């Protein structure tokens, strides 16, 4: 026993001594660090960032991308980002809402490193925020659902009742109502952005209650879409346009994020030393794209949805007063409208939505 112990100790000492020497590698022009709250293989939120960064690495020479998956939204994220900075990263993309404060703390310690946070609101000399304005983009999705539903009951599964999600639901319902005055949207909250078993059960619950079109705002639409497809329902996808492969029969359309152009602009500016972080919100056509239509969607529906998409691209804002919530209160008075900067402030559901925020 003592001999084994001695051997192991000696071996470890030698090996650690050797291993401690860093091996010099060829230096990239820019090291980007990306922090994901889940896995990049989710056909959803995380995948959209991963795909965009892969595109950046392809288009811009000398760019290296470090990625960390399944990083929780807590103090752990700070350690991960510090680790990336130590590996040479000078541009960090923390991608989940909950990574904001850890990222901001790290940003304060490293003024020469730039941060672009997805979905946040904190600002600093080296800290910027951005997001795709999905809320108005959900309006044409509601139009599609409203036209395709036979039961007039639509379903929306959301992870947590945060403002951006509520805004998505509201625009969806308003779009549906515009073509189908009796359409209602039932909301089910799973309590987490990525709880697969709950998502499957939520989809089943909605279908059990007569819903025939299901939309979602969770990190990965895969489980919900597959559950709905297996039961013959229709789905509208979110987060990544690639999800349509999961539902050959029931796919209507969907939304996905296209971050690559924005990421490339940022990367180029950082490399040229002229980057000034700001608050960038781009909507349909710029950071948000519409997925292809499913094979079962008839021509007239496609036309109507495309017309709605164009309307939004031209500046149509469904959140123009008067807008009443589902408890009868007027939330946006006549003459006012909520712009991109207020999309996180929703704390209510529009009329026609079945559900309670708290």
């Amino acid at each position, binding site marked *: 026993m003592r001999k084994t112990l001695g051997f192991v100790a000696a071996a470890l000492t030698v090996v650690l001594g050797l291993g401690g020497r860093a091996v010099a590698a060829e230096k990239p022009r820019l090291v980007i660090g990306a922090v994901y709250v889940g896995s990049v293989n989710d056909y959803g939120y995380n995948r959209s960032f991963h795909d965009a960064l892969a595109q950046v690495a392809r288009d811009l020479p000398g760019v290296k991308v470090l990625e960390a998956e399944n990083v929780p939204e807590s103090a752990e994220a700070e350690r991960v980002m510090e680790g990336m900075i130590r590996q040479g990263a000078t541009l960090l993309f923390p991608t989940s809402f909950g990574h904001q404060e850890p990222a901001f703390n790290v940003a304060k310690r490293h003024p020469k490193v730039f941060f672009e946070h997805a979905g946040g609101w904190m600002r600093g000399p080296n800290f910027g925020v951005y997001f795709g304005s999905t809320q108005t983009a959900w309006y044409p999705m509601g139009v599609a659902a409203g036209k395709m539903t036979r039961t007039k009951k639509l379903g929306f599964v959301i992870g947590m009742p945060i403002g951006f999600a509520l805004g998505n639901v509201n625009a969806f319902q308003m779009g549906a109502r515009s073509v189908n005055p009796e359409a209602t949207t039932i909301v089910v909250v799973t*309590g987490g952005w990525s*709880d*697969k078993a*709950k998502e*499957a059960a939520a989809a089943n619950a909605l279908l*059990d209650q007569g819903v025939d079109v299901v939309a979602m705002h969770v990190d990965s639409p895969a489980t919900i879409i597959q559950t709905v497809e297996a039961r013959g329902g229709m789905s509208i996808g979110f987060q990544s346009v690639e999800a349509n492969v999961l539902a050959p029969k029931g796919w209507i359309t969907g939304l996905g994020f296209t971050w690559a152009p924005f990421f490339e602009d940022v990367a180029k500016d950082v490399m040229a030393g002229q980057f000034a972080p700001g608050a960038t919100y781009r909507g349909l056509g710029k950071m948000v794209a519409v997925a292809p239509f499913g094979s079962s969607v008839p021509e007239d529906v496609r036309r109507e949805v495309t017309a709605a998409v164009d309307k939004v691209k031209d500046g149509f804002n469904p959140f123009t007063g008067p807008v009443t919530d589902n408890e009868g209160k007027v939330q946006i008075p006549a003459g006012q409208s909520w712009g991109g900067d207020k999309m996180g402030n929703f704390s209510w559901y529009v009329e026609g939505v079945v559900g309670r925020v708290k």
Partner: protein
Amino acid sequence: MTTPLLVGILAGAILSGTSLLYAALGETIGERAGIVNLGLEGILLIGASVGFAVTAATGSAWWGLPAAAAAGAASNLLFGWLVVARRANQLASGLAMMFLGFGVSALVGARWVGAVIVGLPKWRPPLLGTLPWVKSSTLFHYDVLTWLALPVALLLWWVLFRTRWGLRVRAVGESPTATYAAGIDPSALQYQALAAGGALGGVAGAHLSLSLTLTWAEYMTAGRGFIAIALVIFSKWDPLRAVAGALLFGGAEALQLQLQARGVEISPFLLEMSPYVLTLVVLLAWGGSRRLAAPASLGRTFQGVQ
């Protein structure tokens, strides 16, 4: 309460309760032999990840399912080696298995996250499919595991209470020394019980990944292993009562989502507490008498004396 809501809750309870039942049945065999595995959660995760990985790699869930069972059995045998051969503290060993399950499942599953699989096929008997309120629901449209859940519970009851092997296993759980004195090797019986139990646990995990969600994600069992352990106590270590318990606890899980889909206005977070609180309340209400129903040598483990 209206029919669609009740049907929805029942349907959800059956879907949710399948993996709970298999997990509880697996744990029942082990506990009848006097061994409690707190790390059941880890066994479920190993079953889910191995089942998913093999299915994604081979293209068929018919390879994944037995692989999950084998992985579960192997894990439980590893646990068995600790508590039987090395006489380690069962509760601490169970937690070690839980950690092992967290890590191994993450390692096995990492490569396959996001893979799209064709899960276990579902089948519905033709006649039942014509009934109106059945057709649009998930009722009677099940995969092989859900169809076999009740038969397996019956089989387990019969094995434990009507066969000689079952009698010996129960004898070990009551008193290993008496069994030994009677000339039977308690260790061998415990290993056999754990292997069978582990296989059922692996299958329970596989149901989550191969049928319910068709995906793999770290920690996806979300505490089902612990609910299953409570379920074993609730059912007084009887496989048949475990069926009722699984429906009840599965129903609690499904209930909160069904209520939301119905528009009932309660906070989703309060609703989500219900399975755990229900478990506690049930244990508390019937707890006293259950203590006496436990296999005697199992009871010693819980009191820290071994």
